[in-house]
């Protein structure tokens, strides 16, 4: 078998020369992880990866579009150099994240990356990038472990602008228990790592605060008839239903809740994933009274409506997923970081040190983003984790304008 022979031979010959990162001096910059040199007239490359196909398409596309708007608002340039935004599809799977990150990393001119949408992709993708000295700024990846203090070395170059699940859950439980004083909840997740994790964090906090979880249910992301599962929940008579599921499922849930005896007046609390105009269309009149958790800040209330308008003009539809604003902020952090560390030489070429960029990103303080003031912790959590509960008050699809619809009800 010459197949065999040649293959084994070749395999044994492979001595992987995965050039280790080492200190490098180019132009005016010396950096311990290497320097990216951008010739005059060439663009600065920033990568992006998110779910552009598969079940979470809406989220991913909204995130990347948000990032593009940030770039546009920034003037499309850093220190006079045009910025090119290369995006790749990471789906919402580990292997998608791996392949997309590998593809992005293949371009050695790449300076930084925003994304991905999902924690499963970040878990694999972020180390691939950082092992080559490329920092990445997560958008929808909310799993707490990614920025835990004991995270593996591969995540030392990973930041995220979205707050992690634990903080979000803590806030929501606080509202439900302390503010509303409700004693029992039902939870629903859709089998995705994101919603399941959030639900578990919520349940844990809720029980710790003396509440009772009377039903812990799950559905499939493509289920359309949720009335049976709602009937089951109705039998347990919860004071509130907590469910961070995505737009379609939330729409079905809100619309069908009214058809199930005993749930008509049970309030529903949703997650950031549905903070978009699209939920109004998906849920129709049933959206009125629906509450979700979202950013609390002044900036967000002021700037998000015009962001949505700009988004619609640019891409034909309003953001379809809740994380577009964080896509915007992730890009903003990246651009600011680049601006801070890029150095030009006499010939007009630009130099960016990789370690320097990473450190600059982690040093982000009080950056006015779309979701609030962004300040990065030593672990890479940059999200303005100041939350609010928002309530929808109008069912007209064009009425989406945070501040009025939905309006902030707490704090």
């Amino acid at each position, binding site marked *: *078998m*010459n*197949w*065999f022979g*040649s*293959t*084994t031979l*070749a*395999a044994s010959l*492979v001595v*992987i020369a*995965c050039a280790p990162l080492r200190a490098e001096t180019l132009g005016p910059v010396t950096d311990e992880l290497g320097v990216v040199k951008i010739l005059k007239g*060439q*663009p600065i*490359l920033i990568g992006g990866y998110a779910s*552009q*196909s*598969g*079940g979470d*398409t809406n989220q*991913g*596309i909204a995130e*990347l579009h948000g990032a593009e708007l940030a770039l546009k608002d920034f003037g499309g340039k850093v220190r006079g150099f045009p910025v*090119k935004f*290369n*995006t*790749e*599809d990471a789906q*919402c*799977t*580990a*292997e998608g994240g*791996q*392949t*997309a990150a*590998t*593809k992005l*990393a*293949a*371009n050695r*001119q790449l300076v930084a990356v925003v994304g991905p949408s999902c924690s*499963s992709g970040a*878990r*694999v993708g972020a180390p691939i990038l950082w092992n080559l000295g490329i920092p990445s700024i997560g958008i929808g990846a909310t799993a707490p472990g990614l920025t835990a203090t004991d995270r593996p070395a591969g995540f030392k170059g990973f930041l995220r602008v979205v707050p992690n699940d634990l903080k979000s859950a803590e806030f929501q439980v606080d509202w439900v228990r302390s503010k509303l004083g409700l004693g029992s909840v039902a939870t629903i*997740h859709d*089998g*995705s*790592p994101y919603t*399941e*994790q959030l639900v578990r964090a919520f349940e844990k906090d809720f029980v710790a605060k003396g509440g009772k979880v009377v039903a*812990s249910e*799950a559905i*499939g992301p493509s289920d359309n008839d949720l009335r049976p599962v709602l009937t089951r929940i109705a039998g347990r008579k919860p004071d509130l239903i907590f469910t961070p599921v995505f737009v379609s499922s939330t729409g079905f849930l809100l619309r069908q809740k009214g058809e199930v005896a005993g749930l008509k007046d049970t309030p529903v609390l949703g997650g950031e994933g549905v903070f978009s105009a699209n939920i109004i269309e998906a849920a129709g009149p049933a959206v009125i009274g629906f509450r979700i958790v979202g950013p609390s800040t002044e900036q967000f209330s002021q700037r998000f409506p015009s962001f949505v308008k700009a988004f619609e*003009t*640019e*891409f*034909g*539809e309003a953001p379809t997923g809740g994380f577009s604003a964080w896509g915007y902020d992730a890009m903003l952090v990246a651009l600011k970081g680049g601006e801070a560390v890029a150095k030009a030489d006499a010939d007009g070429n630009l130099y960016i040190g990789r370690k320097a960029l990473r450190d600059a990103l982690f040093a982000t303080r009080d950056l006015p983003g779309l979701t609030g003031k962004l300040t990065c912790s030593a672990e890479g959590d940059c999200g303005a984790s100041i939350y609010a509960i928002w309530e929808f008050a109008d069912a007209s699809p064009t009425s989406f304008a945070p501040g009025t619809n939905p309006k902030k009800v707490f704090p």
Partner: protein
Amino acid sequence: MSSFDIVTSSFRIHRRRGHAVAEAVRAGAFAGAAAIAFALVGAYLIMDRRFVVEDIITLAQTVVLLFVLGGGHAAARSAARDGATAATAIGFGALAGLVAGLLFAAAILLVAHVGLRSHLVAASPMLVRAVTFLGAPGSAVAAAVLVTAGTAAGSVGAAAAMLRADRRTAVLIGLAALLGAGLFRDVFAGLLHNLPGLAALEPMVFGVGGVTPVAAAVIAVGAAGLSLVLHHRRRPPIAASTRRRIEGVLLVVLLVLVPLVTDAFVAQVAMLVGLYVLMAMGLNIELGLAGLVDLGFVAFFAVGAYTMALACSSDPRAAVHLSFWLALPLATTIAAVAGLLFGLPVLRVRGDYLAMATLGLGEIVRVLVVSDAMKPYLGGSQGIIEIARPSLGGWTLDTPLQFYFLALILAALVGLVSWRLQHSRIGRAWLAIREDEDVAQALGIDLVAAKLLAYTVGAAFAGMAGAVFAALIGSVYPHSFQLAISINVLAILVIGGLGSLPGVVVGSLVLIGLPELLREFGEFRYLFYGIALVVTMHLKTEGLWPAVARQEATDA
């Protein structure tokens, strides 16, 4: 039912060709419609960001141009077949181009001046701006430019049709080479960068987005010239069997060398291709040899992956802590057992019903894996993480390239086993079942046993692929085991050529490799994937590398 499957009924519908003018308008309309669809679906804007030739022509422009060139070409060919002179034929090509240009320009004007966006999201001002080369967006000047360009492109396409066959091929090959270089810029740039002595060429050939103008000219002319030279220096035709052998050797060389000299991304893609080759070889036993249509194949992939995860992870759910090298045969065996268990009940089900039954089983497995009920054992939606990488005497496999060679070696092994099975009493029994189940059974073949064996072996191969997959990614999540994988593997077999081992490799390269290389077109890559499936089946119904009919050379 007869085993002679040449159906004799003759109700194929032939379209009658009309007058040359009508044909030209038709060709133009097709080209125009394709261009409009391309634009309104949003692909234009995405592909407009990528240059084929740096700062000269974008990918989107190239695609639209190709539509119109093709339209003009078709119109001219049609006219020439009716006996038109070259000049007239070019005129018809221009007509086709004019029609295409008019349609496209009209559509753009419509987009610019009528609000279509509530229904068609890509009908945006950005699109209008992107196709405006002169004048104000949406103006008559801009439209006129499009119409003129269309007419010109149609004429050029027609002129190409008037060339001698060898020159036409040369032009085509030149263009294809250029397009390939531009489209797969990253691959070729990585190749240049890593080839000793050629690294200096990289910045000369490739810009950030595409090929540099000078390099473009060199590539196009070079490829065209090479084609001409080869055409005229053709030696007496080589025997088909020899050619196949040469192609086979080339394929192997390609498989071994290319990932070695390109970058990590190509290795990663090659690795995925390798995994699919493993899986497809498994399905090839089931479908290609025994004729069992299986749409739940992903279940065995999942079983293999989860076995590896539960055997090699540091997760508390892990049952044992084995090394990769012990877990691999274990995963293969457990997948085989799963195949046996699934196969037992379903294999009395025939034909398309089997497809549905297996699809059902695959979905059941997926739901079970993701479920909260199984979470204590399988990790639920959070999957199982921290799966140890394989190591050999202190040397750990962790780059995609290393995994690629692991997959390649396994694929070679599995290919060898497949080949040996195929050419044995077992393989003959499978083929007999595929040809005519009843007759095979009447000859003493125990259908259930034979099918079960095929199913089990197929499942084992898929399980092996799953195990490598889990070790490569380092984690398993239920979301990785979608029905789409089963469909993909099925498509690989049919596109490659049922029952053909080289076909499996070619099919995987095309259906896994290409979409991965097109990853940057995100939301559109599955659109292209779908189109590729349809087009391939139309051009090569038997697959890209069909199995050779096994005629023996005893007589001639």
